[in-house]
Protein backbone atom coordinates (compact mmCIF):
# COMPACT_ATOMS: atom_id res chain seq x y z
CA UNK A 1 0.00 0.00 0.00
CA UNK A 2 1.47 3.35 -0.95
CA UNK A 3 1.92 5.79 1.91
CA UNK A 4 1.47 5.26 5.62
CA UNK A 5 -1.51 3.48 7.15
CA UNK A 6 -1.61 6.23 9.76
CA UNK A 7 -0.27 9.77 9.43
CA UNK A 8 -0.92 12.30 12.21
CA UNK A 9 0.43 15.85 12.23
CA UNK A 10 0.00 18.45 14.98
CA UNK A 11 -2.95 16.55 16.28
CA UNK A 12 -4.66 17.66 19.48
CA UNK A 13 -7.84 16.78 21.24
CA UNK A 14 -9.36 17.36 24.64
CA UNK A 15 -12.58 16.07 26.21
CA UNK A 16 -14.82 18.82 27.54
CA UNK A 17 -13.82 19.80 31.08
CA UNK A 18 -11.46 16.84 31.36
CA UNK A 19 -7.69 16.47 31.09
CA UNK A 20 -7.72 12.69 31.04
CA UNK A 21 -7.65 11.12 27.62
CA UNK A 22 -6.48 14.22 25.80
CA UNK A 23 -4.12 14.00 22.81
CA UNK A 24 -1.18 16.20 21.73
CA UNK A 25 0.79 14.46 18.99
CA UNK A 26 3.26 16.44 16.86
CA UNK A 27 3.89 13.71 14.34
CA UNK A 28 3.17 10.00 14.11
CA UNK A 29 3.50 7.57 11.21
CA UNK A 30 2.54 3.91 11.15
CA UNK A 31 3.35 2.04 7.96
CA UNK A 32 1.07 -0.56 6.40
CA UNK A 33 1.65 -4.03 7.84
CA UNK A 34 3.36 -2.82 11.03
CA UNK A 35 2.50 -4.37 14.38
CA UNK A 36 2.52 -1.79 17.12
CA UNK A 37 1.83 -1.81 20.84
CA UNK A 38 0.40 1.29 22.48
CA UNK A 39 1.27 1.71 26.15
CA UNK A 40 0.77 4.35 28.80
CA UNK A 41 -0.97 4.95 32.13
CA UNK A 42 -4.76 5.11 32.40
CA UNK A 43 -5.98 8.38 30.95
CA UNK A 44 -2.81 8.84 28.88
CA UNK A 45 -4.85 8.96 25.68
CA UNK A 46 -4.53 5.39 24.37
CA UNK A 47 -8.25 4.84 23.91
CA UNK A 48 -8.69 8.33 22.49
CA UNK A 49 -6.03 7.67 19.86
CA UNK A 50 -7.61 4.34 18.92
CA UNK A 51 -11.05 5.94 18.68
CA UNK A 52 -9.58 8.65 16.46
CA UNK A 53 -8.05 6.09 14.11
CA UNK A 54 -11.37 4.22 14.04
CA UNK A 55 -13.08 7.40 12.83
CA UNK A 56 -15.17 7.77 15.99
CA UNK A 57 -13.61 10.94 17.40
CA UNK A 58 -14.98 14.34 16.46
CA UNK A 59 -13.83 17.90 17.15
CA UNK A 60 -10.10 17.18 17.11
CA UNK A 61 -7.60 19.67 15.73
CA UNK A 62 -4.77 19.02 13.30
CA UNK A 63 -4.31 16.62 10.45
CA UNK A 64 -5.17 12.92 10.58
CA UNK A 65 -4.90 10.67 7.55
CA UNK A 66 -5.87 7.04 8.06
CA UNK A 67 -5.81 4.44 5.26
CA UNK A 68 -5.49 7.14 2.66
CA UNK A 69 -8.42 9.23 3.84
CA UNK A 70 -8.14 12.52 5.69
CA UNK A 71 -10.49 12.40 8.69
CA UNK A 72 -12.98 15.23 9.02
CA UNK A 73 -13.35 16.43 12.64
CA UNK A 74 -16.94 17.41 11.92
CA UNK A 75 -18.27 14.31 10.17
CA UNK A 76 -18.61 10.57 10.69
CA UNK A 77 -16.71 8.71 7.95
CA UNK A 78 -18.66 6.80 5.32
CA UNK A 79 -19.81 3.21 5.85
CA UNK A 80 -17.32 2.02 3.22
CA UNK A 81 -14.39 3.60 5.08
CA UNK A 82 -15.48 2.45 8.51
CA UNK A 83 -15.30 -1.24 7.50
CA UNK A 84 -11.61 -0.79 6.76
CA UNK A 85 -10.78 -0.31 10.42
CA UNK A 86 -11.62 -3.18 12.75
CA UNK A 87 -11.97 -2.47 16.45
CA UNK A 88 -11.57 -4.97 19.29
CA UNK A 89 -13.11 -3.73 22.53
CA UNK A 90 -11.93 -4.41 26.05
CA UNK A 91 -15.46 -5.45 27.07
CA UNK A 92 -16.03 -7.45 23.84
CA UNK A 93 -19.13 -5.36 22.89
CA UNK A 94 -21.06 -8.34 21.53
CA UNK A 95 -24.83 -8.74 21.30
CA UNK A 96 -25.21 -11.19 24.16
CA UNK A 97 -28.57 -12.67 23.19
CA UNK A 98 -27.50 -13.51 19.65
CA UNK A 99 -25.59 -16.47 18.29
CA UNK A 100 -21.86 -16.44 17.61
CA UNK A 101 -22.53 -16.61 13.87
CA UNK A 102 -24.88 -13.61 13.95
CA UNK A 103 -22.33 -11.58 15.90
CA UNK A 104 -19.61 -12.36 13.38
CA UNK A 105 -22.06 -11.62 10.58
CA UNK A 106 -22.60 -8.20 12.15
CA UNK A 107 -19.05 -7.41 11.08
CA UNK A 108 -20.29 -7.52 7.49
CA UNK A 109 -22.90 -4.80 7.95
CA UNK A 110 -20.68 -2.14 6.41
CA UNK A 111 -19.92 -4.27 3.38
CA UNK A 112 -23.32 -5.75 2.64
CA UNK A 113 -26.43 -4.26 1.07
CA UNK A 114 -27.91 -1.83 3.64
CA UNK A 115 -31.57 -2.65 2.87
CA UNK A 116 -31.43 -6.37 2.15
CA UNK A 117 -29.51 -6.95 5.36
CA UNK A 118 -32.44 -5.50 7.31
CA UNK A 119 -34.48 -8.47 6.07
CA UNK A 120 -31.75 -10.79 7.26
CA UNK A 121 -30.41 -11.45 3.76
CA UNK A 122 -26.64 -11.55 3.34
CA UNK A 123 -24.63 -12.34 0.22
CA UNK A 124 -22.48 -15.40 -0.47
CA UNK A 125 -19.42 -13.20 0.01
CA UNK A 126 -20.67 -12.24 3.45
CA UNK A 127 -21.19 -15.84 4.49
CA UNK A 128 -17.80 -16.86 3.08
CA UNK A 129 -16.08 -14.07 5.00
CA UNK A 130 -17.86 -15.17 8.19
CA UNK A 131 -16.81 -18.81 7.75
CA UNK A 132 -13.22 -17.77 7.08
CA UNK A 133 -13.12 -15.44 10.08
CA UNK A 134 -14.55 -18.07 12.41
CA UNK A 135 -12.03 -20.58 11.06
CA UNK A 136 -9.14 -18.18 11.56
CA UNK A 137 -9.90 -17.69 15.26
CA UNK A 138 -10.97 -21.30 15.81
CA UNK A 139 -14.61 -20.89 16.84
CA UNK A 140 -16.32 -22.95 14.10
CA UNK A 141 -17.75 -25.31 16.67
CA UNK A 142 -19.34 -22.44 18.62
CA UNK A 143 -21.18 -20.94 15.63
CA UNK A 144 -24.67 -21.80 16.85
CA UNK A 145 -24.13 -20.97 20.51
CA UNK A 146 -25.46 -17.86 22.16
CA UNK A 147 -22.75 -15.43 23.21
CA UNK A 148 -24.02 -15.19 26.80
CA UNK A 149 -23.09 -18.88 27.23
CA UNK A 150 -19.42 -18.28 26.39
CA UNK A 151 -16.31 -17.64 28.52
CA UNK A 152 -14.34 -14.39 28.36
CA UNK A 153 -11.66 -15.83 26.11
CA UNK A 154 -14.25 -17.28 23.74
CA UNK A 155 -16.07 -13.95 23.63
CA UNK A 156 -12.92 -12.08 22.69
CA UNK A 157 -12.35 -14.62 19.91
CA UNK A 158 -15.86 -13.93 18.63
CA UNK A 159 -15.16 -10.19 18.75
CA UNK A 160 -11.92 -10.68 16.82
CA UNK A 161 -13.76 -12.82 14.26
CA UNK A 162 -16.32 -10.03 13.88
CA UNK A 163 -13.44 -7.66 13.09
CA UNK A 164 -11.83 -10.05 10.62
CA UNK A 165 -15.16 -10.52 8.85
CA UNK A 166 -14.97 -6.82 8.04
CA UNK A 167 -11.82 -7.50 5.96
CA UNK A 168 -10.08 -4.60 7.65
CA UNK A 169 -6.78 -3.05 6.60
CA UNK A 170 -6.14 -1.70 10.09
CA UNK A 171 -6.87 -3.68 13.24
CA UNK A 172 -7.25 -1.62 16.42
CA UNK A 173 -7.45 -3.40 19.76
CA UNK A 174 -8.26 -1.40 22.90
CA UNK A 175 -6.86 -3.33 25.88
CA UNK A 176 -8.13 -6.62 24.45
CA UNK A 177 -6.56 -8.74 27.18
CA UNK A 178 -7.15 -6.75 30.35
CA UNK A 179 -10.29 -8.79 31.17
CA UNK A 180 -8.62 -12.14 30.55
CA UNK A 181 -6.48 -14.53 32.58
CA UNK A 182 -2.75 -14.71 31.62
CA UNK A 183 -3.01 -17.91 29.57
CA UNK A 184 -6.03 -16.73 27.61
CA UNK A 185 -4.38 -13.33 27.21
CA UNK A 186 -1.35 -14.93 25.55
CA UNK A 187 -3.60 -16.90 23.23
CA UNK A 188 -5.58 -13.81 22.22
CA UNK A 189 -2.41 -11.80 21.56
CA UNK A 190 -0.97 -14.62 19.46
CA UNK A 191 -4.25 -14.81 17.58
CA UNK A 192 -4.28 -11.07 16.85
CA UNK A 193 -0.66 -11.27 15.69
CA UNK A 194 -1.19 -14.32 13.47
CA UNK A 195 -4.39 -13.04 11.88
CA UNK A 196 -2.80 -9.65 11.18
CA UNK A 197 0.32 -11.31 9.73
CA UNK A 198 -1.63 -13.78 7.58
CA UNK A 199 -3.88 -11.10 6.13
CA UNK A 200 -1.22 -8.39 5.90
CA UNK A 201 -3.20 -6.15 8.24
CA UNK A 202 -1.69 -3.29 10.24
CA UNK A 203 -2.12 -3.97 13.96
CA UNK A 204 -2.25 -1.47 16.79
CA UNK A 205 -2.90 -2.91 20.23
CA UNK A 206 -3.04 -1.01 23.50
CA UNK A 207 -2.17 -2.74 26.73
CA UNK A 208 -0.99 -2.29 30.31
CA UNK A 209 1.17 -5.40 30.03
CA UNK A 210 4.25 -4.41 27.96
CA UNK A 211 6.11 -7.60 28.79
CA UNK A 212 3.32 -9.80 27.56
CA UNK A 213 2.78 -7.79 24.38
CA UNK A 214 6.45 -7.37 23.46
CA UNK A 215 6.70 -10.81 21.84
CA UNK A 216 4.00 -9.97 19.34
CA UNK A 217 4.93 -6.49 18.11
CA UNK A 218 7.82 -4.83 16.34
CA UNK A 219 7.31 -1.39 17.78
CA UNK A 220 6.22 0.33 20.98
CA UNK A 221 4.57 3.72 21.21
CA UNK A 222 4.17 5.14 24.70
CA UNK A 223 1.78 7.93 25.53
CA UNK A 224 1.92 10.23 28.54
CA UNK A 225 -0.76 12.88 28.95
CA UNK A 226 -1.43 12.70 25.24
CA UNK A 227 2.21 13.10 24.16
CA UNK A 228 4.29 10.43 22.46
CA UNK A 229 7.12 9.89 24.97
CA UNK A 230 8.62 6.76 23.46
CA UNK A 231 8.61 5.32 19.96
CA UNK A 232 10.89 2.44 19.09
CA UNK A 233 11.46 -1.31 19.04
CA UNK A 234 10.67 -3.39 22.16
CA UNK A 235 14.40 -3.89 22.88
CA UNK A 236 14.89 -0.13 23.26
CA UNK A 237 12.19 0.17 25.89
CA UNK A 238 14.10 0.41 29.17
CA UNK A 239 12.85 -0.10 32.68
CA UNK A 240 13.37 3.55 33.56
CA UNK A 241 11.27 4.58 30.55
CA UNK A 242 8.48 2.37 31.83
CA UNK A 243 8.91 3.85 35.29
CA UNK A 244 8.57 7.34 33.85
CA UNK A 245 5.49 6.43 31.88
CA UNK A 246 3.74 4.78 34.77
CA UNK A 247 5.13 6.82 37.67
CA UNK A 248 1.84 8.58 38.36
CA UNK A 249 -0.22 5.46 37.89
CA UNK A 250 0.94 3.55 40.96
CA UNK A 251 2.74 0.21 40.73
CA UNK A 252 5.11 -0.17 37.79
CA UNK A 253 4.33 -3.09 35.47
CA UNK A 254 6.87 -5.81 34.93
CA UNK A 255 9.81 -4.82 32.70
CA UNK A 256 10.01 -6.01 29.11
CA UNK A 257 13.17 -8.07 29.22
Amino acid at each position, binding site marked *: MPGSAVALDNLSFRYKGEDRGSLAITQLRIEAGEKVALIGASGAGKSTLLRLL*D*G*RLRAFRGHAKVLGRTLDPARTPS*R*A*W*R*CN*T*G*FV*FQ*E*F*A*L*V*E*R*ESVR*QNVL*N*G*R*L*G*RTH*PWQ*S*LLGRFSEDDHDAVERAMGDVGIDDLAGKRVDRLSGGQRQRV*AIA*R*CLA*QDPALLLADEPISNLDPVTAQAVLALLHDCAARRGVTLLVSSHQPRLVARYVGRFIALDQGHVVFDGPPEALRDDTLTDIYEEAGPVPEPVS
Partner: protein
Amino acid sequence: MSTRDSLAIPAAKTGAPPRDRGGRSPSYAPFLLSLALAALIIWSWTGSDIELDRLASSGGRIADFLGRMLPPDLSVLPVVLESSAETLRIAVLGTFGCVVLSLVLGPLAAETLTPRWLHRPVQWLLATVRGIPLLLVAMLMVGAVGLGPLPGILAVAFHATGMLAKFYAEAIDGVDRAPIEALDSAGASFLQKLRFGAWPQMAPDIVRDTLFRFEMNLRESLILGVVGAGGIGFYIQVYVRTFQYQKVATLTLVVVAFVILIELANGMIRRMLR
Protein backbone atom coordinates in the same frame (compact mmCIF):
# COMPACT_ATOMS: atom_id res chain seq x y z
CA MET B 1 -44.47 -2.39 39.46
CA SER B 2 -44.93 -5.03 42.13
CA THR B 3 -47.02 -7.17 39.78
CA ARG B 4 -44.26 -7.18 37.25
CA ASP B 5 -41.46 -7.80 39.71
CA SER B 6 -43.33 -10.79 41.07
CA LEU B 7 -43.08 -12.45 37.67
CA ALA B 8 -39.55 -13.30 38.77
CA ILE B 9 -38.19 -13.29 35.26
CA PRO B 10 -34.39 -12.99 35.14
CA ALA B 11 -34.13 -9.33 34.26
CA ALA B 12 -32.32 -8.68 31.02
CA LYS B 13 -31.57 -5.15 32.14
CA THR B 14 -27.92 -5.82 32.73
CA GLY B 15 -27.05 -2.54 31.11
CA ALA B 16 -29.05 -0.54 33.62
CA PRO B 17 -27.21 0.67 36.69
CA PRO B 18 -28.44 -0.85 39.95
CA ARG B 19 -30.73 1.51 41.78
CA ASP B 20 -29.13 3.15 44.81
CA ARG B 21 -31.02 1.89 47.83
CA GLY B 22 -29.28 4.31 50.13
CA GLY B 23 -27.78 2.82 53.25
CA ARG B 24 -27.63 6.24 54.84
CA SER B 25 -31.05 5.83 56.47
CA PRO B 26 -30.91 6.24 60.28
CA SER B 27 -31.52 3.16 62.38
CA TYR B 28 -34.82 4.38 63.88
CA ALA B 29 -36.48 4.51 60.45
CA PRO B 30 -37.76 0.91 60.58
CA PHE B 31 -39.37 1.62 63.97
CA LEU B 32 -41.16 4.74 62.72
CA LEU B 33 -42.24 2.84 59.62
CA SER B 34 -43.75 0.05 61.74
CA LEU B 35 -45.64 2.64 63.82
CA ALA B 36 -47.03 4.29 60.72
CA LEU B 37 -48.07 0.94 59.29
CA ALA B 38 -49.84 -0.02 62.53
CA ALA B 39 -51.63 3.33 62.59
CA LEU B 40 -52.76 2.82 59.01
CA ILE B 41 -54.26 -0.60 59.76
CA ILE B 42 -56.01 0.65 62.93
CA TRP B 43 -57.44 3.62 61.06
CA SER B 44 -58.74 1.37 58.28
CA TRP B 45 -60.34 -1.03 60.77
CA THR B 46 -62.05 1.49 63.05
CA GLY B 47 -63.20 3.63 60.15
CA SER B 48 -64.87 0.74 58.34
CA ASP B 49 -67.45 -0.02 61.04
CA ILE B 50 -66.76 -3.75 60.91
CA GLU B 51 -69.08 -6.00 62.90
CA LEU B 52 -67.41 -9.35 63.36
CA ASP B 53 -70.65 -11.11 64.36
CA ARG B 54 -71.96 -10.47 60.85
CA LEU B 55 -69.02 -12.44 59.52
CA ALA B 56 -69.75 -15.25 61.97
CA SER B 57 -73.37 -15.57 60.91
CA SER B 58 -72.57 -15.44 57.21
CA GLY B 59 -71.70 -19.11 56.84
CA GLY B 60 -75.25 -20.21 56.33
CA ARG B 61 -75.97 -17.51 53.81
CA ILE B 62 -72.89 -18.34 51.75
CA ALA B 63 -73.85 -22.01 51.73
CA ASP B 64 -77.36 -21.05 50.65
CA PHE B 65 -75.91 -18.81 47.93
CA LEU B 66 -73.63 -21.55 46.61
CA GLY B 67 -76.51 -24.02 46.75
CA ARG B 68 -78.61 -21.83 44.53
CA MET B 69 -75.78 -21.78 41.96
CA LEU B 70 -76.10 -25.53 41.45
CA PRO B 71 -76.56 -27.03 39.00
CA PRO B 72 -75.19 -24.48 36.50
CA ASP B 73 -77.76 -23.44 33.92
CA LEU B 74 -76.11 -24.46 30.66
CA SER B 75 -78.86 -23.02 28.50
CA VAL B 76 -77.07 -19.66 28.58
CA LEU B 77 -73.82 -21.20 27.35
CA PRO B 78 -74.13 -19.87 23.76
CA VAL B 79 -74.81 -16.32 25.00
CA VAL B 80 -71.99 -16.51 27.52
CA LEU B 81 -69.53 -17.88 24.96
CA GLU B 82 -70.45 -15.22 22.42
CA SER B 83 -70.02 -12.39 24.91
CA SER B 84 -66.73 -13.92 26.12
CA ALA B 85 -65.57 -13.81 22.52
CA GLU B 86 -66.52 -10.14 22.47
CA THR B 87 -64.43 -9.56 25.60
CA LEU B 88 -61.52 -11.33 23.90
CA ARG B 89 -61.96 -9.10 20.85
CA ILE B 90 -61.95 -6.02 23.08
CA ALA B 91 -58.76 -7.20 24.79
CA VAL B 92 -57.04 -7.99 21.45
CA LEU B 93 -57.93 -4.68 19.81
CA GLY B 94 -57.32 -2.73 23.02
CA THR B 95 -53.86 -4.33 23.29
CA PHE B 96 -53.20 -3.55 19.64
CA GLY B 97 -54.14 0.08 20.34
CA CYS B 98 -51.92 0.37 23.41
CA VAL B 99 -48.99 -1.24 21.54
CA VAL B 100 -49.29 1.36 18.78
CA LEU B 101 -49.48 4.20 21.31
CA SER B 102 -46.60 2.74 23.34
CA LEU B 103 -44.39 2.43 20.26
CA VAL B 104 -44.64 6.21 20.05
CA LEU B 105 -44.69 7.16 23.74
CA GLY B 106 -42.21 4.50 24.93
CA PRO B 107 -39.22 5.92 23.04
CA LEU B 108 -40.29 9.43 24.10
CA ALA B 109 -40.21 8.35 27.75
CA ALA B 110 -36.81 6.61 27.45
CA GLU B 111 -34.10 8.41 29.38
CA THR B 112 -31.25 7.20 27.17
CA LEU B 113 -32.99 8.27 23.97
CA THR B 114 -34.84 11.48 24.67
CA PRO B 115 -33.66 14.70 26.37
CA ARG B 116 -34.78 15.33 29.91
CA TRP B 117 -37.15 18.19 29.04
CA LEU B 118 -39.13 15.72 26.94
CA HIS B 119 -38.88 12.37 28.72
CA ARG B 120 -39.82 13.79 32.15
CA PRO B 121 -43.18 15.26 30.99
CA VAL B 122 -43.97 12.10 29.03
CA GLN B 123 -43.21 10.01 32.13
CA TRP B 124 -45.56 12.22 34.18
CA LEU B 125 -48.22 11.89 31.51
CA LEU B 126 -47.93 8.09 31.61
CA ALA B 127 -48.09 8.08 35.42
CA THR B 128 -51.28 10.15 35.24
CA VAL B 129 -52.80 7.79 32.67
CA ARG B 130 -51.93 4.84 34.93
CA GLY B 131 -53.63 6.63 37.80
CA ILE B 132 -57.04 6.84 36.09
CA PRO B 133 -59.04 3.65 36.79
CA LEU B 134 -60.13 1.68 33.73
CA LEU B 135 -63.81 1.77 34.70
CA LEU B 136 -63.73 5.56 34.90
CA VAL B 137 -62.16 5.80 31.46
CA ALA B 138 -64.74 3.34 30.13
CA MET B 139 -67.63 5.39 31.51
CA LEU B 140 -66.22 8.53 29.88
CA MET B 141 -65.78 6.66 26.60
CA VAL B 142 -69.36 5.32 26.73
CA GLY B 143 -70.47 8.91 27.16
CA ALA B 144 -68.34 9.96 24.21
CA VAL B 145 -68.99 7.21 21.65
CA GLY B 146 -72.06 5.37 22.96
CA LEU B 147 -72.61 1.79 24.18
CA GLY B 148 -70.92 -1.33 22.78
CA PRO B 149 -67.41 -2.72 22.40
CA LEU B 150 -65.90 0.42 20.84
CA PRO B 151 -65.73 2.45 24.09
CA GLY B 152 -64.29 -0.67 25.76
CA ILE B 153 -61.53 -0.96 23.16
CA LEU B 154 -60.69 2.74 23.44
CA ALA B 155 -60.67 2.59 27.24
CA VAL B 156 -58.36 -0.44 27.34
CA ALA B 157 -56.00 1.09 24.77
CA PHE B 158 -55.81 4.35 26.72
CA HIS B 159 -55.51 2.85 30.18
CA ALA B 160 -52.94 0.16 29.26
CA THR B 161 -50.63 2.60 27.49
CA GLY B 162 -49.74 4.13 30.84
CA MET B 163 -48.03 0.91 31.85
CA LEU B 164 -46.90 -0.54 28.52
CA ALA B 165 -45.15 2.63 27.30
CA LYS B 166 -43.28 2.72 30.61
CA PHE B 167 -42.19 -0.90 30.11
CA TYR B 168 -41.09 -0.15 26.55
CA ALA B 169 -39.06 2.82 27.79
CA GLU B 170 -37.38 0.57 30.36
CA ALA B 171 -36.57 -1.99 27.67
CA ILE B 172 -34.97 0.75 25.59
CA ASP B 173 -33.02 2.08 28.58
CA GLY B 174 -31.75 -1.44 29.32
CA VAL B 175 -30.01 -1.70 25.95
CA ASP B 176 -26.23 -1.96 26.20
CA ARG B 177 -24.57 0.73 24.08
CA ALA B 178 -21.23 -1.02 23.51
CA PRO B 179 -22.42 -3.51 20.85
CA ILE B 180 -24.11 -0.68 18.98
CA GLU B 181 -20.87 1.30 19.00
CA ALA B 182 -19.11 -1.81 17.69
CA LEU B 183 -21.56 -2.06 14.80
CA ASP B 184 -21.04 1.63 14.09
CA SER B 185 -17.31 0.97 13.95
CA ALA B 186 -17.96 -1.85 11.48
CA GLY B 187 -19.77 0.54 9.16
CA ALA B 188 -23.42 -0.23 10.03
CA SER B 189 -26.08 2.28 9.00
CA PHE B 190 -28.53 3.75 11.52
CA LEU B 191 -31.23 1.22 10.63
CA GLN B 192 -28.72 -1.63 10.73
CA LYS B 193 -27.64 -0.56 14.22
CA LEU B 194 -31.28 -0.55 15.30
CA ARG B 195 -32.01 -3.91 13.68
CA PHE B 196 -28.84 -5.82 14.67
CA GLY B 197 -27.65 -3.92 17.75
CA ALA B 198 -30.64 -2.60 19.69
CA TRP B 199 -33.56 -4.79 18.64
CA PRO B 200 -32.08 -8.22 19.57
CA GLN B 201 -31.32 -6.85 23.02
CA MET B 202 -34.83 -5.59 23.75
CA ALA B 203 -37.12 -7.80 21.65
CA PRO B 204 -37.61 -10.51 24.29
CA ASP B 205 -38.52 -7.86 26.90
CA ILE B 206 -40.90 -6.09 24.53
CA VAL B 207 -42.71 -9.30 23.58
CA ARG B 208 -42.92 -10.49 27.18
CA ASP B 209 -44.22 -7.13 28.42
CA THR B 210 -46.81 -7.01 25.65
CA LEU B 211 -48.09 -10.51 26.42
CA PHE B 212 -48.25 -9.67 30.11
CA ARG B 213 -50.25 -6.52 29.37
CA PHE B 214 -52.57 -8.48 27.07
CA GLU B 215 -53.33 -10.86 29.92
CA MET B 216 -54.08 -7.93 32.23
CA ASN B 217 -56.23 -6.28 29.55
CA LEU B 218 -58.25 -9.46 29.19
CA ARG B 219 -58.93 -9.73 32.92
CA GLU B 220 -59.80 -6.07 33.23
CA SER B 221 -62.07 -6.22 30.15
CA LEU B 222 -64.28 -8.82 31.88
CA ILE B 223 -66.01 -6.11 33.91
CA LEU B 224 -66.23 -3.45 31.21
CA GLY B 225 -69.79 -4.52 30.34
CA VAL B 226 -70.93 -3.35 33.78
CA VAL B 227 -70.73 0.23 32.50
CA GLY B 228 -72.02 -0.66 29.03
CA ALA B 229 -68.64 -0.90 27.33
CA GLY B 230 -69.22 -4.34 25.82
CA GLY B 231 -68.33 -7.95 26.57
CA ILE B 232 -69.30 -10.44 29.22
CA GLY B 233 -69.48 -7.89 32.02
CA PHE B 234 -72.99 -7.01 30.90
CA TYR B 235 -74.22 -10.52 31.74
CA ILE B 236 -72.30 -10.63 35.01
CA GLN B 237 -74.26 -7.61 36.08
CA VAL B 238 -77.64 -8.76 34.76
CA TYR B 239 -77.49 -12.30 36.21
CA VAL B 240 -76.23 -11.21 39.63
CA ARG B 241 -78.69 -8.33 40.00
CA THR B 242 -81.64 -10.53 38.99
CA PHE B 243 -80.55 -13.36 41.33
CA GLN B 244 -80.12 -15.91 38.49
CA TYR B 245 -77.34 -17.73 40.30
CA GLN B 246 -77.38 -20.87 38.13
CA LYS B 247 -76.55 -18.69 35.14
CA VAL B 248 -73.88 -16.89 37.18
CA ALA B 249 -72.32 -20.33 37.80
CA THR B 250 -72.09 -21.11 34.08
CA LEU B 251 -70.62 -17.70 33.45
CA THR B 252 -68.03 -18.06 36.21
CA LEU B 253 -66.89 -21.45 34.89
CA VAL B 254 -66.53 -20.11 31.36
CA VAL B 255 -64.58 -17.06 32.51
CA VAL B 256 -62.21 -19.14 34.64
CA ALA B 257 -61.58 -21.63 31.81
CA PHE B 258 -61.11 -18.77 29.39
CA VAL B 259 -58.53 -16.94 31.55
CA ILE B 260 -56.61 -20.14 32.29
CA LEU B 261 -56.46 -21.00 28.59
CA ILE B 262 -55.03 -17.60 27.69
CA GLU B 263 -52.50 -17.80 30.53
CA LEU B 264 -51.33 -21.23 29.35
CA ALA B 265 -50.91 -19.96 25.81
CA ASN B 266 -48.95 -16.95 27.05
CA GLY B 267 -46.78 -19.14 29.23
CA MET B 268 -45.90 -21.31 26.25
CA ILE B 269 -44.87 -18.31 24.17
CA ARG B 270 -42.80 -16.92 27.05
CA ARG B 271 -40.93 -20.20 27.46
CA MET B 272 -40.09 -20.16 23.78
CA LEU B 273 -38.54 -16.73 24.27
CA ARG B 274 -36.61 -17.69 27.40
